[in-house]
């Protein structure tokens, strides 16, 4: 069993981030792209480390040193949970090589464990980025004993275990439920979205409980923060307390608890592994078609319909790209239901967002558009479009149109709710309607531009494209980051110039969108892939 897990894990890790392809490819372009991506990732890692280091410094300076380890553990665990819950089902039950694995003398537990380890390795990297700067700053400023570092190292190794176990359990549960349904992808995506929105609403409602401690807050801020962390994620307190107080017993008890939860989840998933895979990948063929009238559609219409069907055939594509629009409606609904001030407080926003609600809505809409991976999603079928008499503009328009169509109903609902709740004057109404609209257009065109620059067609699993590709990271978050920067710029402009500034920013974004759109349409499809 151990040998089986070792071999299968090696196989999983070789496929991670295209490392094996990088090692053996003779194509210099592929090597350059991978190196470029590595440098970009290193830059992001250094930025994150610097941010965490500064935040840790700030915590210690305001006398909250004892809270810091628990805070960092909670932060890394929540990030892992949020990112893993989307892909856990797809990774554990990935179709790739399922038939080959089934024909080999390997146990299903070994398959499940190897896929779990792959997720663990990815997330351990993330944990180290969060924990290491924090531990270093704490070490320099607080000068703890050797037990802090020992427990800190052990804890860092085990931090990903619990969130991954929870994410795997939830992901597997969603996949298992969806596998029994007719529209598997759609059911899976819907359940996943409900789950994520539930987690987000749950954590934000727990964090708002600090209102109850308003008097205590003045007297003992650390205790209040620890109480909030304990409500959100109790293991962070156990691990954090073990680190600060040098309590080895508490440390090992927490690790043992995580390991037991992990093993129980593995046992449950393994027991149902083949059953779930069979339900997921078996297709029913009715074999009863009779020729009927076929309706003619325009080229653009045909490509658009194909985009729609492609989209709903992939649950991970849906869940990853619909989060933004759904959260936009949740945000607008919350503003409508409880008011802007309370929402701002619940989200813990340190700034007054009243003047930038249109931008805030635009930022939420700009996260992970469909277009940042829609070219890559063509995958091995890319030859079809390349060999057909299809203009670049028609193909890209169909992808853009689908991205915009998806956002449209959510945009309309959000607008109605916000207009109703905020009762804006004429100028405010203008910004509320047009700023998100321009930003949605911009982020979709920007996503498409990035995907055309960094397409990946030779992928094994949709997870590689939707969650791990450079295009999904840069295109999916880049557009959002640009809109965020615009929002921050508006915040720092004197009130009397805000309207002019909003107009200039909107004009620039619209201009860039138009330029990128025109430029994208000149791309030679033959040169892609």
């Amino acid at each position: 069993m151990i040998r089986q897990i070792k071999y299968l894990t090696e196989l999983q890790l070789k496929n991670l981030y295209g490392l094996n392809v990088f090692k053996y490819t003779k194509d210099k372009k592929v090597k350059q792209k991978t190196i470029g991506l590595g440098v970009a990732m290193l830059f992001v890692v250094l930025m994150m480390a610097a941010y965490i280091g500064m935040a840790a410094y700030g915590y210690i300076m305001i006398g909250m040193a004892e809270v810091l380890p628990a805070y960092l553990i909670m932060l890394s665990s929540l990030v892992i949970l949020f990112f893993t819950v989307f892909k856990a089902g797809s990774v554990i039950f990935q179709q790739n090589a399922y038939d080959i694995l089934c024909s080999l003398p390997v146990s299903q537990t070994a398959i499940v464990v190897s896929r779990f380890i792959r997720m663990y390795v990815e997330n351990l990297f993330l944990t180290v980025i969060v924990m290491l700067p924090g531990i270093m700053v704490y070490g320099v400023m607080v000068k703890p004993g050797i037990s802090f570092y020992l427990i800190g190292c052990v804890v860092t190794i085990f931090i990903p275990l619990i969130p991954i176990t929870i994410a795997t359990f939830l992901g597997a549960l969603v996949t298992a439920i969806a596998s029994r349904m007719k529209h598997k992808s759609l059911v899976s995506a819907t359940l996943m979205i409900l789950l994520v929105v539930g987690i987000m609403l749950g954590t934000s409602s727990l964090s708002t409980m600090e209102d109850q401690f308003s008097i205590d807050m003045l007297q003992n801020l650390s205790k209040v923060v620890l109480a909030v962390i304990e409500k959100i994620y109790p293991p962070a307190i156990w691990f954090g307390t073990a680190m600060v107080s040098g309590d080895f017993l508490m440390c090992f008890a927490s690790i043992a608890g995580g390991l037991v939860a992990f093993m129980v989840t593995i046992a449950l998933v393994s027991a149902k592994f083949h059953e779930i895979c069979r339900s997921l990948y078996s297709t029913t063929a009715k074999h009863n078609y009779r020729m009927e009238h076929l309706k003619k559609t325009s080229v653009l219409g045909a490509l658009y319909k194909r985009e729609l069907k492609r989209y709903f055939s992939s649950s991970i594509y849906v869940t990853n790209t619909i989060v933004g629009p759904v959260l936009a409606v949740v945000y607008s609904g919350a503003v409508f239901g409880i008011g802007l001030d309370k929402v701002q407080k619940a989200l813990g926003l340190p700034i007054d967002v009243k003047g930038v609600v249109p931008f805030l809505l635009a930022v939420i809409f700009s996260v992970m558009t469909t277009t940042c991976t829609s070219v890559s999603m063509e995958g091995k079928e890319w030859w079809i479009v390349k060999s057909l008499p299809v203009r670049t503009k028609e193909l890209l328009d169909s992808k853009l149109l689908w991205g915009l169509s998806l956002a449209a109903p959510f945009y309309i609902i959000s607008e109605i709710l916000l207009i109703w709740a905020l009762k804006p004057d004429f100028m405010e109404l203008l910004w509320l309607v047009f700023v998100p609209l321009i930003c949605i257009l911009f982020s979709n065109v920007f996503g498409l531009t990035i995907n055309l620059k960094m397409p990946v067609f030779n992928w094994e699993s949709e997870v590689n494209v939707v969650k791990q590709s450079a295009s999904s990271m840069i295109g999916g978050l880049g557009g959002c980051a640009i809109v965020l920067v615009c929002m921050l710029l508006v915040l720092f402009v004197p009130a009397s110039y805000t309207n002019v500034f909003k107009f200039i920013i909107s004009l620039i974004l619209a201009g860039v969108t138009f330029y990128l759109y025109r430029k994208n349409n000149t791309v030679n499809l033959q040169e892609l892939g």
Partner: protein
Amino acid sequence: MLRITNLTKHYKGSNKGVTDISLTIEPGDIYAFIGHNGAGKTTTLKCVAGIHGFDKGEILINGTSIKENPLLCKQQFAYIPDNPDLYEYLTGIQYLNFIADIFEVPEKEREMRIEKYADAFEITASLGDLISSYSHGMKQKLAIISALVHAPKLLILDEPFVGLDPKAAVVLKEMMHEICESGGAIFFSTHVLDVAEKLCNKVAIIKDGVLIASGNMDEIVKQGESLESIFMEVACDDKTN
């Protein structure tokens, strides 16, 4: 119909590719393209189909350059790769209708052609099912039907007989003859030398990216010889020497 002149295509960072390929396919030709695995058959076919760009040379389809006017060229041919990766999220009929939409085939014509070819390949009943439920052979049949749905003048096929059952292979050969009799042409790669010899009037042999023989079948395969023996003689001379 198809004129390839001094086609040269090399993959970046690799010695693989094709060098200085020239051949002409006339209306009515069934042209076989044979060679070892990795000899450059698929690369050549993909260049002709406009899937790959190329470094040097020219490819003309009915006098139109694929480089200069790819859209006009693509309207005149159909291409089927060696491994038909089709849109698995569509049903068979949705895929065929999609292809017909792209080629702007009138409704009546598409219905008539799909019915004719789907019946011939015996997959009409499966057209309402998702392509993901199809076997390899069924996908190959669907790819062939999609290639025929817009009545192309030129068919470019990469290993078209792989995965087909014996009856479907016979149907495909009949269709290939039918297309050529109506003034069309077929350029296809194959490893089945018997089929190539019986079916084709022209043949080209490629080795390590270079065309080593091409022309009329009866000029290349003299009386008393077979395409197999010729192929072994010219394409495998390294081993025999």
